[in-house]
């Protein structure tokens, strides 16, 4: 039996099931990160002093530029499919995957530098919330990379069988990826600059 409404829209919602599903998932993600942001505020308000300049702002800014670039390449990967250019789609999706890998490599160097100085999550309240927020965000990046690698590899075959369904899958992946970018847009000033 085929899963209904993967290509055509449901008459009652006007949406494909995949699209409504990803938005409900993203709503739950907003609450997950929201709880951690709220925790950050409570910890910061209760702390007698809050450290400044502990993080490498240049590296954080570079990672922001990388994630914004990856959002542009992701939306272009979807747009290329809509314009029937599968070759360009693969190029943009591969670029998104590479950019996300570069983001994680930068994060690795940042983490390694902290641990080399003995600054783990147990070192201070600030570092505890820093590692929690960026670690959870990093896991989301990794999850997105796995999905993108799937669509570059075994999942790409769907384009020949059902191009519209494939384009919808890439759109849903893109929505997730832009959300991950959106979270970082707030994490960067909150953790690195304030």
């Amino acid at each position, binding site marked *: 039996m085929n899963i209904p409404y993967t290509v055509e829209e449901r008459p009652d919602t006007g*949406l494909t099931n995949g699209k409504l599903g990803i938005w409900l998932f993203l709503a739950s993600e907003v609450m997950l990160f929201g709880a951690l*942001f*709220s925790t950050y505020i409570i910890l910061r308000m209760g702390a007698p002093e809050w450290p400044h300049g502990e993080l490498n702002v240049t590296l954080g800014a570079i990672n922001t530029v990388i994630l914004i670039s990856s*959002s542009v390449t992701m939306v*272009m990967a979807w747009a290329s499919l809509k314009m029937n250019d599968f070759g360009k789609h693969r190029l943009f999706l591969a670029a998104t995957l590479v950019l996300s890998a570069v983001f994680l490599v930068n994060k690795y160097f940042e983490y390694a530098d902290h641990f080399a100085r003995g600054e783990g999550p147990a070192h201070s309240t600030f570092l505890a919330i820093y590692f929690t927020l960026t670690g959870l965000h990093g896991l989301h990046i990794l999850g997105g990379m796995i999905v993108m690698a799937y669509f570059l590899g075994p999942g790409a075959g769907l384009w020949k069988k059902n191009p519209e369904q494939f384009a919808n899958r890439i759109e849903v992946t893109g929505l997730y990826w832009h959300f991950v970018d959106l979270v970082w847009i707030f994490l960067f*000033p909150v953790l690195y*600059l304030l």
Partner: protein
Amino acid sequence: MPSDPAEVKKAVRTYMMVGAALFVFTAITVAANRLHLAVPLAITVALIIATMKGSMVAGVFMHLSHERKWIYGALLLTVVLFAALMCLPSFTMMDGIGTPAPAVGVAAENVGH
């Protein structure tokens, strides 16, 4: 959300412009940090810029500016609950739990003076 190839082609230009605007806003955020503003002002400036950037990502890249009412409905509920979460820290400051009450003897002594 654009659906036919001609519309998508037009939208590509918008995606590029929004991408460029996001880079500019990132540069402004970092530059504002170098001004060493007072903490409340720095927080306000950084969060205003982040909200503008977030709105551009959500509105254009996530096509939220042209979506169906079901998605707006789900997100409206999320915004309300998210706002409640952000208010939680101020509730913790308003209650008196953990505030030591003055000892009865000390209070009576103060009245005598």
